[in-house]
């Protein structure tokens, strides 16, 4: 392996000393059989592989990625991390993730640029602020951090914010999570891949799974272009493609794949020190360390598999961002793109057992799962290794739609395009 990353080594190698940097992860040739085959080399799949090896001593693990590592939603998300959810199950899992993020750069020996610069959720009415107060109390009760800002406090925390009381959607206050923030999304995939690879996990890119060989109610092997690969356990972590892969295994899922757009401005010097979300028709903005404003909003409103979207959503989002930060009207949009969000019928993830005995599912993270990456990896790894759902993900079971034990944070019901 290429050795640990450090400033010292960087200096050293700057002078061509002590050898060259080696590949971050090795390109494996597949074996005939693995204890665990993970379908999907996004952050979630790679983290699962890492924790299987690290926490459970399972090294006989293969990650199969259809394209390039991190090229799915991991590579196209707006990188917001936070745990400010109201419902207990949602909040607890993301809080665990936040705790893991806090030490992850060191653990993985890869600077993920975890930037806990604060996440501000704006309330546009007293009723909304009351709901935020409730949310803040729920967060504090479960041991997370939260604060409610009134207009004065908001002015100090987010100086460029437009607080015109006569605005179309006046801002009356906000929920602030100081530990929320952003990080360098691509690095998450690369760092988990590097760490997993160092623990003996095999990773193969450009190798989509095209089917499963089933015997009884189990998967015996996964099918790929180069050949079939036997597996004792299969983890499916393919985000937008979840329904396609579930179909290969013979079942339907209670979710739909819906494009979501994001966009960046041209880079400028530091202009915004927090991530801010406008609630009256979702729109949020933060700034990367490189200087672009990263902006996102709601979904395109209907299913599709084209990782792009229309003018309407961009206009909607841009208008709200300008409303919050009028100076942004004079900035320029540099690139817009999209990802395919897998959104379940209650808007929350689906994790754990499936109708196929040895197939563990991690799906339905929609446009909110990046923040959960380490926790997903951790809990899914434990679920696979121990053969029963980690308590944090037990509520996210697939059968909750039949039983009625829904986790609907937004209360929008079985209409994924509204979540």
């Amino acid at each position, binding site marked *: 392996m290429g050795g640990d990353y450090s400033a010292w080594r960087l200096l050293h190698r700057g002078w061509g000393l002590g050898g060259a940097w080696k590949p971050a992860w090795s390109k494996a040739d597949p074996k005939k059989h693995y204890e665990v085959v993970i379908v999907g080399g996004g952050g979630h799949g790679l983290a699962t592989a890492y924790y299987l090896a690290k926490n459970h001593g399972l090294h006989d693990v293969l990650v199969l990625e259809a394209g390039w590592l991190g090229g799915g939603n991991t590579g196209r998300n707006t990188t917001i991390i936070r745990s400010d959810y109201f419902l207990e199950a949602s909040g607890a899992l993301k809080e665990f993730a936040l705790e893991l993020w806090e030490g992850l750069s060191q653990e993985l020996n890869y600077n993920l640029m975890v930037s806990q610069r604060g996440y501000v959720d704006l309330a546009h009415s007293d009723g909304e602020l009351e709901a935020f107060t409730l949310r803040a109390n729920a967060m504090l009760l479960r041991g997370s951090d939260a604060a409610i800002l009134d207009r004065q406090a908001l002015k100090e925390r987010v100086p460029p914010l437009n607080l015109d009381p006569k605005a179309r959607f006046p801002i009356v206050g906000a929920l602030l999570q100081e530990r929320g923030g952003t990080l360098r999304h691509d690095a998450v995939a690369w760092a988990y891949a590097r760490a997993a690879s160092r623990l003996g996990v095999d990773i193969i890119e450009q190798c989509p799974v095209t089917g499963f060989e089933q015997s009884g109610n189990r998967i015996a092997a996964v099918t790929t272009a180069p050949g079939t690969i036997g597996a004792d356990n299969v983890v499916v972590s393919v985000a937008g493609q979840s329904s396609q892969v579930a179909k290969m295994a013979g079942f339907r899922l209670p*979710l739909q794949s819906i494009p979501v757009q994001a966009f960046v401005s041209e880079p400028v010097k530091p202009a915004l020190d927090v991530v801010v979300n406008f609630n009256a028709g979702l729109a949020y903005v933060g700034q990367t360390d490189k200087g672009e404003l990263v902006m996102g909003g709601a979904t395109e409103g209907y299913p*599709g598999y084209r990782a792009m979207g229309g003018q309407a959503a961009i206009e909607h989002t841009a208008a709200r961002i300008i409303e919050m930060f009028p100076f942004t009207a004079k900035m320029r949009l540099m690139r817009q793109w999209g990802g395919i969000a897998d959104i379940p019928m209650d808007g929350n993830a689906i994790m754990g057992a499936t109708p196929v005995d040895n197939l563990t599912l991690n799906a339905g993270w929609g446009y909110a799962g990046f923040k959960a990456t380490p926790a997903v990896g951790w809990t899914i790894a434990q679920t696979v290794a121990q053969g029963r759902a980690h308590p944090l993900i037990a509520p996210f079971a697939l059968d909750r739609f039949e039983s009625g034990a829904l986790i609907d944070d937004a209360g929008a019901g079985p209409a994924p395009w509204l979540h």
Partner: protein
Amino acid sequence: MIHIPCPWCGPRDETEFTYGGEAGDVMPALDGQSDQVAWHAFVHLSENPSGPVSEFWYHGGGCGRWLLVRRDTASYEILEVRDAVEAARGPKDDVER
């Protein structure tokens, strides 16, 4: 971004329409049988294909009709659009233009 040729209004911008879900399983009858499995499938499970699929769209910003749209979710091509009522009732030819 798509354009839907409404059978009543002609081609219209996506912003005039509201998506209303897959037109997959038929809604179970309200006949007191309460087949929970069928209702679960109808309400929750979707094909979610990457390819052609039938779906409901509401032309709320136009004629106010619900439409049955056959659409390719991979190419975004609109393959067929019919008034939902007419589609439920009979062949396409009956639909006055």
